[in-house]
């Protein structure tokens, strides 16, 4: 036993020596500091959990159950509907031949450009449209029945709204998985006498399962992060609960505990995802394997396939966009003024700054961790990218707590400054940039960096001459994703925006909050248009690589 303990102790001593003595240099020290600083806002939230929360018992006994119920209903419903919409359309465009298939292939991702709260605003009167139906129930059945139906109906409506713009996360990964699937597997299934349906259910879908689960987990994160849409439909969820407890009851520790519950829920889902993705190496078939031959569809089936692909696009893109465009055309004169131009410029400027800084930090952090093989930096990186799993509202609270402590400690006022807002975006979206850069570096640069080191080249030269040129596409993609996410971001911006600073998203929210939804269409459309550009670029890239 003693010998074993000594062995463990020696192991750790050696580890510490290697990590903190041998691998210590300007790169690793700065990466360590940056990683920890980016994790600080989340650490603040966890740290403040120890504070006494006066209203916690009240929350636990009254609304916590509602928040869990509301969040879970939305998560399950949105995930299920997203899977249905995403997988069905992905399978059709990946495996069947019908007119317009190429067109659908990329247009199906367009709803990704619409943030959930804007989708909710574009459907703001959907519930009112159901009023005649409810009144019919009251007149023909009973008032109680109407009250029951009208209480419940808000959930399916919200789920439809959320899923109609979130399904592309599933669609994208499912389509890629279906396309990459080994021709041999599919052909084997066919020669074993499985028709298209049976092939789909028994071969293609199980093989694509790990990828689909990955996509669904993004849908779930977005659902849990949403504030604007659930606020609009007044559904009790964790995000609305956090805002309410913090701001209405004035109990920050209580809000933090709710945030912690939410983080536990997310952690649970992440673990579930890891577990469900077990066997994710299903499709590491060689590239030389031909993609499988698509099924030729007859006229009627083609027509049905087109309908099936049109449906998500109509509810997720065409309908919201055309409604917004109509409202925008009605109100554009009232909305567009010099202020509007300024806030558009604000949005673009801050999103540009946030994406540049995020990408720079992401490449610096991944490079340092991989180049110097530092497990410590790898660990701090993992902590730093946790921000993506944490809802914007929670990060904003964490940043405010941090700012308060900094203010008390050295009198430096961080609140209401642009730099703090940018810091918050970096914390929230680092993972968005980190993911493509890190996987690109893992795939393309590992061995090359070793080669470069053994040639005696300095780290900075390896980074600038080898890694950055090699990862050009990943860097642009990362930058664009962060840019779009920043443009769309709402809860965090609402809390942290500085003096006289409005962005397109806060303007949209403000106008919608004042029940000026037609007016909010103008900034909403601007956000969507800006978000569309990277999607078009991405599509262009995918096409190129497929060729």
């Amino acid at each position, binding site marked *: 036993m003693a010998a074993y303990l000594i*062995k463990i102790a020696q*192991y750790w001593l050696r580890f510490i020596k290697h990590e903190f*003595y041998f691998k210590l240099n300007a790169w690793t020290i700065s990466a360590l500091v940056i990683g920890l600083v980016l994790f600080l806002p989340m650490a603040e939230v966890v740290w403040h959990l120890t504070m006494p929360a006066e209203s916690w018992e009240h929350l636990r006994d009254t609304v916590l159950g509602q928040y869990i119920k509301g969040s879970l209903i939305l998560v399950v419903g949105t995930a299920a509907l997203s899977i249905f919409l995403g997988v069905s359309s992905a399978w059709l465009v990946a495996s069947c031949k019908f007119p317009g298939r190429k067109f659908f292939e990329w247009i199906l991702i367009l709803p990704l450009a619409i943030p959930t709260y804007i989708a909710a605003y574009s459907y703001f009167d959907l519930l009112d449209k159901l009023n005649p139906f409810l009144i019919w129930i009251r007149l023909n059945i009973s008032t109680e029945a109407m009250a029951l139906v009208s209480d419940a109906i808000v959930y399916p409506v919200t789920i439809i709204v959320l899923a109609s713009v979130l399904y592309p996360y599933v669609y994208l990964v499912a389509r890629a998985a279906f396309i990459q699937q080994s021709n041999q597997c599919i052909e084997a299934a066919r020669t074993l006498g499985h028709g298209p349906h049976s092939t789909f259910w028994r071969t293609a879908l199980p093989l694509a399962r790990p990828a689909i689960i990955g996509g669904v987990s993004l849908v779930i994160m977005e659902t849990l992060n949403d504030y604007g849409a659930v606020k609009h439909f007044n559904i009790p969820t964790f995000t609305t609960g956090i805002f309410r407890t913090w701001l209405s009851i004035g109990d920050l520790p209580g809000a933090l505990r709710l945030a912690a519950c939410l983080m536990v829920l997310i952690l649970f889902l992440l673990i579930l995802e890891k577990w469900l993705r077990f066997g994710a190496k299903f499709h590491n078939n060689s590239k030389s394997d031909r993609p499988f031959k698509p099924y030729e569809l007859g006229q009627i089936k083609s027509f049905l396939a087109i309908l099936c692909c049109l449906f998500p696009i109509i509810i997720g893109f065409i309908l919201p966009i055309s409604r917004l465009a109509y409202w925008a055309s009605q109100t554009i004169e009232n909305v567009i003024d010099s202020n509007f131009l300024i806030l558009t410029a604000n949005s673009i400027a801050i999103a540009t700054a946030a994406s540049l800084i995020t990408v720079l930090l992401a490449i610096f952090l991944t490079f340092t961790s991989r180049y110097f093989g530092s497990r410590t930096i790898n660990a701090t990186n993992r902590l730093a990218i946790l921000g993506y799993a944490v809802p914007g509202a929670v990060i904003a609270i964490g940043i405010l707590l941090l700012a308060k402590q900094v203010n008390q400690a050295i009198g430096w006022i961080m609140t209401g400054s642009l730099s703090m807002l940018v810091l918050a975006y970096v914390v929230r979206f680092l993972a968005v940039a980190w993911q493509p850069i890190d996987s690109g570096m893992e795939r*393309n640069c590992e061995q090359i960096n070793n*080669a470069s080191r*053994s*040639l*005696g080249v300095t*780290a900075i030269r390896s980074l600038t001459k080898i890694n950055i*040129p090699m990862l050009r596409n990943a860097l642009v993609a990362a930058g664009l994703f962060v840019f779009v996410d920043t443009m769309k971001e709402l809860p965090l911006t609402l809390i942290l925006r500085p003096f006289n600073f409005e962005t397109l998203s806060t303007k949209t929210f403000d106008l919608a909050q004042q029940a000026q939804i037609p007016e909010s269409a103008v900034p909403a459309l601007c956000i969507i248009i800006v978000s569309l550009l990277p999607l078009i670029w991405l599509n262009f890239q995918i096409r190129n690589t497929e060729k």
Partner: protein
Amino acid sequence: MNVLTLKNITKSYNSNEPPALNDLSFNCQSSEVIALIGGSGSGKTTLLRIIAGLEAPDYGEVILNNDTLNSSTVFVTPEKRDCGLVFQDYALFPNRTVRQNIIFGKGAMDDPSWINELINMTGIAGLEKRFPHELSGGQQQRVALVRALATRPLLLLLDEPLSHLDPELKESVRTELLKLFRETKTTVVFVSHDIEDATAMADRMVVMHKGKAEQIGTSNEIYKNPMNKNVARLFGKTNFIPIKLIPNAPYSFTEKESNEKLVPVRPHQWRVINDPTTDLPTFNGKVKSVINQVSHKEVEFETSQLNITLHLPTNQSVQADSKLTIAYNAEL
């Protein structure tokens, strides 16, 4: 003079598992070519990476030309080590041309004539403006070699230099590499799993098994006088005969587990004996099976005590279940 000295190198990845490298020591003279040979999991690539500085050992010292690169208090980063490393998959920079690849290393530009000489020696002249993906596998390897040698390293490390090549190309590449090493007077440590490659190229080889250096020596020494069963098996099928059965055998080793002295006998060291009066030690037994091969017949032979594998000339007629007398001839 020793260019490279390794002392007691130990490395484990996980405190619960047996170490990947276990107390390994050897040294390497100037202009010597050393092969690290062993099966997968023997730790040979880990050792190469430790010498290059891409990994740090838990214990032990690496000394290159009197400079300590690794010790309990020293760790010289790979950039600062005077080692060139050629990777198994060459690791050429895909975004740089052949020439840009070659001159990328530290100090590679100091001596353009040296680079030209290397380019001519390896026959890659005329390819300088191409990108790596426009080259064949053999050409890529030469570029990687030139790139590593361009920095004039004290020590050149190669990871499985011949594993990606098809058998026909292999022989010519072996000769070319050897020629290049001799002409440039390079000290080389390379990793291989193939005993033929190691025999053809290396002055000495380090036989590795489960993180230990089982035997160090020239190919011939190791072939004739292996230290244990694992080393002996590197060169193909081997029979281990207790020394009491062939007391005059020139080579033997003591098996650690049973503490038994064994003689390694290669299958071709047996002869069928028709004349019972020979001086050679003989064994009587029965043929179990016969497999025809291109150059010989492989016979599984069973005596009252042992199972023996022997290679007999193709013209010798042997039937399964027939009884034979065989003799061991150390001269063969």
